């Protein structure tokens, strides 16, 4: 099987994390983490022995996806329905507990091949498969498989000798799995047509049966020769050679291919996909009808070369490829008019010259000369020169139907996502579609879908931006938030369950929300309004932020009837200080805090919301607070007045003191006068 060294660590980690106790997928399958099957390791994760718990109890194994490769969720159900003895049967799939229950992984269960691989490696030599075995065993099996795949509209994307097994007693060959990774993700450039080979692994698009036919053609060559005839060539050199000489001439070259195979191999290795043999032509050939495939049409050659970055190029495809690899030099060449002159005089293609000139126009009109403007101009010119090639922009080479997947790939591999975001923002897929000589009806809806998510890129804040585009364009992608990365949450209920498990971790994040979680929920839980996510914008009142968060989680818990989530509730309660702070009265605050603690332990999110968001209690508290502030102000004013008063004792003496003295004097005078009067009146003379 092919193995990308980049993922070796991930596979090793996943194998180590598995523990030794069997884990179950419902009551249907059991994975035995203690029994790794390295021979069946896939690019997306390690393989382990597995047991069927019911049914016919055939031998099976499980691939445990480590999450380092974007999943192929859209095709799993269809692949499961394929019941063809020539392809490794996908028995079941689902999520299993992993890492002693501290995480979850997606598990794919396959029927275990009993025979050996046709080839162990593409680099070493091996015995060639005899002609008659190819004709009697390999071709009939593969023809049936290709017919089945074509009928279901599925691209395998992994047809190569190292992904094929011999069935028991040479009853045929068994094509390996293709369910764990997107089509062509781990496929060497040798087995991909030029356009797909030029794309980065995550940018190869959905592909078609014609791409599988090409891969099968190369496989036949390798099996017949018993070796990879171009094993000494780098991928880049191989692609250049395929462009210059054609795939058949490059791969077969002067090697002696069995006579019977020359015709189908030539047909399947045609570089023009419209000319390439499909399943129908192959079936016709199998039934004995002899077809004469056309020669590969090589790119139109100029009368004189154009020099770029020290290399001479003779045709448009080569020029486009070289431009993408040398952007500054290419920009100089375009702006200097060299490309235009070469197209008009060297290639005598006025129409293409006009197209290239219009491709460079927006950059010429741009007021600033930022690097992205130059990159965009070169990308557009490269598309105009080679319309079938992927969009090549800032190191990314992506076919338009794979923008979402390329974005997912960048995220899971922790690479820069900006180039893919700019491809969408600059509307390069729409331009790619515009420059196609023949309409690409199958790509148009995907490009339109990208146009529809374009406004999301321009909105900042959690729930929008590049993460939202990621989940909108990858409907089966799990939530990539670091908070729940171990739990492979693919649906909103999964996410809540994952957050419940994550809440028990000692190194959990401060709050159960980040840009990924917000974007994932916005994309997957359509009942939520975007306005709710605006509450997560910077600068918004933290109380509104928290209540919005609980509202969203609560809505999911109610709609999907999820069991109580006490851990998540307590996690949310731990970040609720701003909501408690909304209650000014300390006693009320404590009452609400205790109420929240009580409700949190019950794990019901809607109750939690009701506890902190009671409008009547909030109104009463606000009124009480306003009254208290008034009382405080009055007390301060009165205190100030009294202090001022007692600071000026002279004034008291001169005002109140003297008034009191005169009042006392008057009272005393009246009393004495009255007493004297009575004494004189009733007491006689002196």
């Amino acid at each position, binding site marked *: 099987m092919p193995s990308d060294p980049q993922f070796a660590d991930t596979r090793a980690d996943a194998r180590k994390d598995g523990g030794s106790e069997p884990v179950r997928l419902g009551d249907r399958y059991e994975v035995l983490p203690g029994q790794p099957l390295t021979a069946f390791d896939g690019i997306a994760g390690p393989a382990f022995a597995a047991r069927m718990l019911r049914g016919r109890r055939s031998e099976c194994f499980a691939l445990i996806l480590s999450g380092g490769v974007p999943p192929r969720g859209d095709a799993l159900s269809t692949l499961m329905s394929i019941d063809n003895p020539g392809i490794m049967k996908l028995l079941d799939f689902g999520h299993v507990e992993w890492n002693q229950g501290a995480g979850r992984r997606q598990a794919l269960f396959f029927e275990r091949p009993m025979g050996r691989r046709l080839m162990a490696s593409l680099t070493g030599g091996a015995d060639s498969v005899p002609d008659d075995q190819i004709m009697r065993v390999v071709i009939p099996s593969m023809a049936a498989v290709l017919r089945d795949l074509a009928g279901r509209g599925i691209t395998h994307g992994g047809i190569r000798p190292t992904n094929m097994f011999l069935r028991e007693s040479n009853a045929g060959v068994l094509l390996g799995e293709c369910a764990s990774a997107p089509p062509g993700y781990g496929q060497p450039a040798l087995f991909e047509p030029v356009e797909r080979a030029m794309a980065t692994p995550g940018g190869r698009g959905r592909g078609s049966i014609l791409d599988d036919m090409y891969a099968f053609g190369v496989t036949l060559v390798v099996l017949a020769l018993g070796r990879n005839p171009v094993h000494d060539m780098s991928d880049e050199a191989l692609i250049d050679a395929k462009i210059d000489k054609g795939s058949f001439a490059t791969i077969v070259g002067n090697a002696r291919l069995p006579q019977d195979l020359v015709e189908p191999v030539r047909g399947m290795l045609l570089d023009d996909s419209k000319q390439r043999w499909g399943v129908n032509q192959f079936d016709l050939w199998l039934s004995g009808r002899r077809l004469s495939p056309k020669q590969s049409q090589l790119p139109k050659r100029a009368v004189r070369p154009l020099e770029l970055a020290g290399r001479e190029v003779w045709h448009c495809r080569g020029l486009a490829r070289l431009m993408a690899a040398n952007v500054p030099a290419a920009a100089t060449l375009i702006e200097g008019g060299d490309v235009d002159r070469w197209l008009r005089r060297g290639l005598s293609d006025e129409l293409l010259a006009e197209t290239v000139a219009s491709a460079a126009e927006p950059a010429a009109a741009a007021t600033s000369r930022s690097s992205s403007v130059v990159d965009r101009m070169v990308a557009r010119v490269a598309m105009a020169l080679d319309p079938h090639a992927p969009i090549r922009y800032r190191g990314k080479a992506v076919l338009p139907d794979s923008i979402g997947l390329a974005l997912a790939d960048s995220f899971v591999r922790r690479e820069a996502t900006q180039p893919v975001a700019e491809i969408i923002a600059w509307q390069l897929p729409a331009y790619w579609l515009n420059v196609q000589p023949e309409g690409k009806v199958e790509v148009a809806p995907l490009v339109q879908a990208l146009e529809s998510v374009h406004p999301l890129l321009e909105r900042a804040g959690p729930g929008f931006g590049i993460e939202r585009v990621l989940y909108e364009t990858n409907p089966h992608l799990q939530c990539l938030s670091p*908070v729940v990365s171990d739990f492979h949450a693919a649906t909103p209920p999964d996410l809540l369950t994952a957050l419940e498990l994550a809440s028990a971790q000692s190194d959990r994040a401060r*709050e159960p929300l980040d840009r990924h979680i917000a974007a994932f929920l916005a994309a997957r839980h359509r009942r939520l309004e975007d306005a709710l996510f605006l509450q997560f*914008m910077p600068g918004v009142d933290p109380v509104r932020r928290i209540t919005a968060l609980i509202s969203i989680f609560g809505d999911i818990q109610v709609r999907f009837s999820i069991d109580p989530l006490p851990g998540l509730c307590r996690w949310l309660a731990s970040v609720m200080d701003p909501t408690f702070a909304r209650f*000014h*009265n300390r006693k009320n605050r404590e009452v609400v805090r205790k109420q929240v603690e009580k409700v949190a332990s019950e794990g019901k999110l809607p109750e939690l919301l009701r506890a902190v968001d009671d409008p009547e209690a909030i109104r009463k508290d606000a009124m*009480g607070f306003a009254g208290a502030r008034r009382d405080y102000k009055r007390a*301060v004013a009165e205190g100030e007045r009294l202090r001022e008063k007692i600071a000026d004792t002279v004034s008291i003496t001169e005002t109140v003191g003297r008034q009191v003295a005169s009042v*006392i004097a*008057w009272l005393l005078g009246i009393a004495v*006068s009255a007493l004297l009067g009575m004494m004189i009146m009733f007491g006689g003379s002196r």
Partner: protein
Amino acid sequence: MTDGKSHGKKKPHKASGGGGGAFVTFLLVVTPAVLFAMPTTVLAAVGMIPSLVAYVADRDPAKSASMTVAPINVCGILPFAMDMWKHQHTMQAAMHLLGDPLTWLVMYGAAAVGWALYFLIPPIVTNFEVMRAESRIEVLTAKKAELTEEWGPDVAISDEALLEKNKASAQAQSLGAPSGQAKA
């Protein structure tokens, strides 16, 4: 009065006329009383000299000194005046009383008591007022502490400061919140 020529002179004339009216009334009422009670008037005129001095010397517009001294001063005169009214209300009796040092002692002693009240009571009242104010300040301080304890320190800050604080708090929260975002 509408005559522009005489306008400037009428006002003072009217003012002096008003004052003159009062004065005439005073003369009409007081003069017969004084003439009728001349002995008492003489006794009072002599006996009330301390009050008169207090009135003249007091710079307080409310004339608090004379208002304090006078009632007690009157108490000092009243026994002698009543004695005259009862026995002999004549100038001779008045002169006789004025010739007696005891009369002077009582009348002026009473005035002295009035002065004593004037000087002693205000400090006492001041001390009382200060104590009362300090006690009230203590109550207010306790009330403020109680309000702060019940409603938090925000109860004490101004409306503008509260608004600023809420804004800063919201900003700090929203800046602190995306810790998960940064990870993402």
